[in-house]
């Protein structure tokens, strides 16, 4: 069984980054972006409390439904669209092979 997938992240300048993402570490998309030094703050440490890891899902992958905590946070965030998610709540899994994401703009 393969234990990494490729996740593509477009940064805020639309630069493409194909990231090797481990599926066996319980890592989130927020942590993945930070480990590749992409400009994701992850201020709250992954508790769905700051929206600094807000991303748009560009590909058609079936992702786990957002929890109430995540929806509540997205309700308070800005630049939110239909395909908005919090990177910290997306745990990297095998099904995410080829997932394409874009970093949402930073709000004040």
């Amino acid at each position, binding site marked *: 069984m393969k234990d990494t997938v490729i996740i593509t992240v477009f940064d805020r300048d639309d630069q493409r980054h194909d990231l090797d993402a481990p599926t066996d570490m319980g890592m989130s998309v927020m942590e993945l972006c930070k480990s590749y030094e992409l400009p994701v*703050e992850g*201020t*709250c*440490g992954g*508790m769905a*409390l*700051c929206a600094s890891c807000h991303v748009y899902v560009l590909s058609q992958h079936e992702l786990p439904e957002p929890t*109430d905590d995540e*929806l*509540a946070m997205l*309700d*308070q*965030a*800005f*630049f*939110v669209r239909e395909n908005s998610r919090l990177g910290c709540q997306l745990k990297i899994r095998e099904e995410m092979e080829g997932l394409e994401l874009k970093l949402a*703009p930073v*709000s*004040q």
Partner: protein
Amino acid sequence: MDKIIETDIVIIGAGPVGLFAVFEAGLLKMRCHLIDVLPHPGGQLMEIYPKKPIYDIPGYPSVLAGDLVKNLMEQILPFNPGFTLGERAENVEKQADGRWCVTSSQGTKHIAPVIFVAGGLGCFEPRKPPIANIEYFEDKGVEYFVRNPEFFKNRNVVIAGGGDSALDWAIYLSDVAHELSLVHRRTEFRGAPDSVEKVLELAKSGKIKLITNAQVVGLNGNGKLDSVVIQHDTDGEFTLNTDYFVPLFGLTPKLGPIADWGLAVDKGAIEVNTLDYSTNVPGIYAIGDINTYPGKLKLILCGFHEATLACQSAFKMARPDQKLSFKYTTVTGIEGLSL
């Protein structure tokens, strides 16, 4: 007259690490005074996740964040720390006698030879909607808090947001304001069901003008707000006259005024020397989540260690004429400080 407090260590931030620093300083007979922008001690543990269990505090298989704060408060009680709560540490100045003076947002002055910055994520500040000229209209019609509801009496008010505070204030101000509009990006509200129901009722009876699937995208006025531009998902843009715009999108932590104190900062965190967690400014230390160094982990337990070493170094600053002798609490116990 402004209040003046003199102490050995001024600790900015009353989170777990700031609180534990009081204990370690107390063992060395140094007095501490804590400043925090929140109205209660405990920092983000109390503000954000008091009911969440923490599993990596040595000796506690599991402890609720709120209980950890309660225990820390009990642990530092013998050392009788002072608190300036609900005020933000605004400004730091070196005095002629070599000590620091930290002035709060309310003008309280704190004088000490040593400052510990234990500010965690920073100050909790309102999340500002991305509207280009919003800062221009602050105090000219844009309010991020409802400090005094009477302020809005018989005026036109637009509230934006869909959470509990937006709903609660919309309900309350619908009776106070001349016209109260509530703008929310979606149709559904995530607030408490009772509040949602009440808002929908008030909207039906015309007490609240409910504008959903819409966002405030612009502000107009000359020297003071007189209208907001609202963009509706399907109906496009329109202008709504108003005296006040109150965006209620929760709080977000910001480094705040600390960024301007001449401390070396890297990606929003204060750089320190791991020898004693001192910053580039002698007499100012940074401990806990607010600092950074190679290998830094933002863990409460690491902050406790940092606080302990910083106190040893601070003693030499605060008591240059005294010798520091290291003692175990198992040998000497806890000797309280009498003030």
